């Protein structure tokens, strides 16, 4: 089995939503059982009276980090297919600060607020309402902050790349940091609990087992370094897959965030007319050298005037899957950008396809509506009715 499952099509979109629901409930259940549905427990973190928030959250981070490191090192997980949000340094710093202020004021972070609301705590419900109101306000004021929102763009920035150290080493470092912080947090807890007249909160035996587990996992992660091949002499030729116009059009409508569409024709031709949603090669980089550095979190789809026979050099160095539009722009123009012709004879399959293409044509050309479907051959007369058939009780 190769991970991640969903990007590798182990199951479909619908099943992924079901999996998300199950994971969400499990997450909420664990948060609730950890006491994270109560603001005093969360706020106690800031008074060093009870640092379980740090322990649980940092513990979860270390577990996920070590787990993915070992899996990736063993070749079971393709890191490049994990979705990593892009970094926009300044807005994320400001947003993080705002989130922290909200955390202290309300006693909850967004996830724990939902858990608290589910536990029947009114303050949790109010925090959720506040998060929603804030998101709405942000939407209203977006034009004023749009420029700031995109400032400090670093693309997909990962610490191993920025620091130039192997992932496993970094993971072991973070794990060591976590152990240090856990011990420090307990020391603080003891100090502050004594001042308040309380006793120690944690039994040492399970704690030691956790530390042993973290140490073993860190060693396991480091051990995978031995498995890694020394730097590959020549990058393997990227897998070029063709995608037809109809599939591409559907993908652009249904999941636009899953692909990055690049028009590799002359910039002038692209500026004149291109597939909606495609980016043109910049005039100062007609070779498209930026393609190699695009984050591999989305599939890269390229097209030329006709079908591309060979990939442009930079695209061949792209980290993720590269697709090429079958027939190029000409094929897409014929298939989608031109109004479809009603099928004849009318079969259910032809009619379904005609409806789909009509809808896509309307979407991509901005036509007000798809042309009306053809009437099937036969004596059936069209009897126009009111706008809606009612009835039923």
């Amino acid at each position: 089995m190769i991970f991640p499952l969903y990007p590798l099509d182990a199951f479909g979109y619908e099943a992924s939503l079901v999996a998300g629901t199950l994971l969400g409930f499990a997450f909420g259940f664990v948060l609730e059982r950890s006491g994270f549905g109560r603001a005093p427990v969360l706020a106690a973190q800031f008074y060093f009276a009870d640092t379980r928030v740090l322990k649980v959250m940092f513990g979860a981070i270390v577990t996920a980090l070590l787990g993915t490191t070992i899996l990736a090192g063993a070749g079971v997980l393709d890191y490049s297919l994990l979705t990593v949000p892009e970094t926009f340094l300044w807005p994320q710093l400001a947003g993080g600060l705002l989130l922290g202020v909200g955390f202290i004021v309300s006693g909850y972070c967004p996830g724990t607020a939902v858990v608290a609301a589910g536990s029947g705590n009114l303050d949790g419900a109010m925090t959720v309402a506040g998060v929603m109101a804030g998101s709405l306000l942000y939407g209203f004021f977006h034009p004023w902050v749009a420029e700031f929102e995109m400032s400090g763009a670093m693309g997909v920035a990962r610490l191993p790349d920025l620091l130039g150290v192997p992932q496993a080493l970094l993971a072991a470092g973070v794990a060591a940091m976590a152990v240090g912080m856990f011990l420090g947090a307990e020391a603080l807890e003891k100090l502050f609990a004594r001042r308040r007249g309380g006793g120690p909160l944690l039994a040492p035996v399970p704690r030691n087992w956790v530390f042993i587990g973290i140490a073993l996992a860190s060693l396991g992660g480091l051990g995978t370094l031995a498995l890694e091949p020394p730097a590959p002499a020549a990058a393997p030729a990227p897998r070029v897959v063709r995608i037809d116009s109809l599939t591409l059009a559907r993908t652009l409508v249904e999941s636009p965030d899953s692909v990055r569409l690049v028009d590799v024709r002359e910039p002038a031709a692209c500026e004149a007319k291109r597939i909606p949603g495609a980016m043109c090669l910049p005039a100062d980089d007609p070779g498209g050298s930026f393609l190699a550095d695009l984050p591999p979190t989305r599939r890269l789809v390229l097209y030329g005037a006709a079908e591309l026979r060979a990939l442009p050099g930079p695209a061949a160095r792209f980290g993720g899957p590269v697709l090429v539009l079958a027939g190029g722009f000409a094929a897409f123009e014929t298939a989608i950008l031109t109004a479809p012709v009603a099928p004849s004879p009318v079969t259910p399959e032809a009619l379904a396809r005609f409806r789909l293409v009509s809808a896509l044509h309307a979407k991509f050309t901005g036509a007000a509506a798809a042309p009306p479907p053809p009437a099937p051959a036969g004596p059936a007369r069209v009897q126009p009715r009111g706008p809606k058939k009612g009835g039923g009780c």
Partner: protein
Amino acid sequence: MTGNLEVVTTRHNAAIDPVLSAWGWEIPVYLFLGGLVAGLLILGAGYELLHPDRPRSRALRAMPFAALGLLSLGMLALFLDLAHKLHVYRFYLAFRWTSPMSWGSWILLLVYPVAFLHGVGSLTAGQRETLLARRALAPLLRPLLRWADRARRAVLKTSVVAGLGLGLYTGLLLGTLAARPQWNTAVLGPLFLASGLSTGAAFLLLFRLDEREHDFVVRWDVGAILVELLLLGAMLLGFAAGDRSAQHALYHLMGGPWTSAFWSLVVFAGLLVPLAMELIGRRRRLPLAALAPALILAGGFALRWVLLVAGQASSFREFP
């Protein structure tokens, strides 16, 4: 050939019926509220019939009036769906025993007076005195109260019957429509009744009941959820064993476009999680929480919504 016949006989043809997906938000809202009211009537009257000597909480006494309000909201949604609103009286000019819609129209007409009498008979002595002190009401209310008290058990029994009819018919209404393979199953009637009982119980659990009432309602809710799960399983098995159109209806809920809504909202969040919460809550004597009832209500609504939308997309057209 068969496909063409189906296109004609079931009118699944854009040239005959210009709108193939005719029901919007109104019908699921009505079906949900109708089922909920059915559950309220059955549980409220059933509790008193089974335990006539027990005192009843304020919430349970006010329940019939809440049922009337909720049903009126549902009827309003139903009325909004009618294309020819002024023709609504025509439902009451005939009774066709083969038509669930006709049954439903008359059942709805029965529910109003029964629930009203049920509610009036549940008024406390203090409430009666307050109402009888009003001169305008007294001449009408006095004989009504006397009659409602005298025929109390008959009213309660009729309330249970009306509730059963209302709950069953909302499912049968869809189940008898042969043109939609997703709905054309006899399971739908009992399924909607079980779901109505469960949502009615959940609605009651949102209010302050006394301990024995709470126990009674939770016990019935747990039973209704278990029956609902069984019936959902039977429905899916029926689809799986059916013809191609039925199997396509199964695909809608098992891999198709309504899979996540059905399994996440209806089965998991709407049935399994609240069932677990209620069982654990009963065993450990945990204080009453609003989350399980809220999940059941949301799940009950999702069940009708999913089946309505998926049903309107299911047809014989794809199978020439």
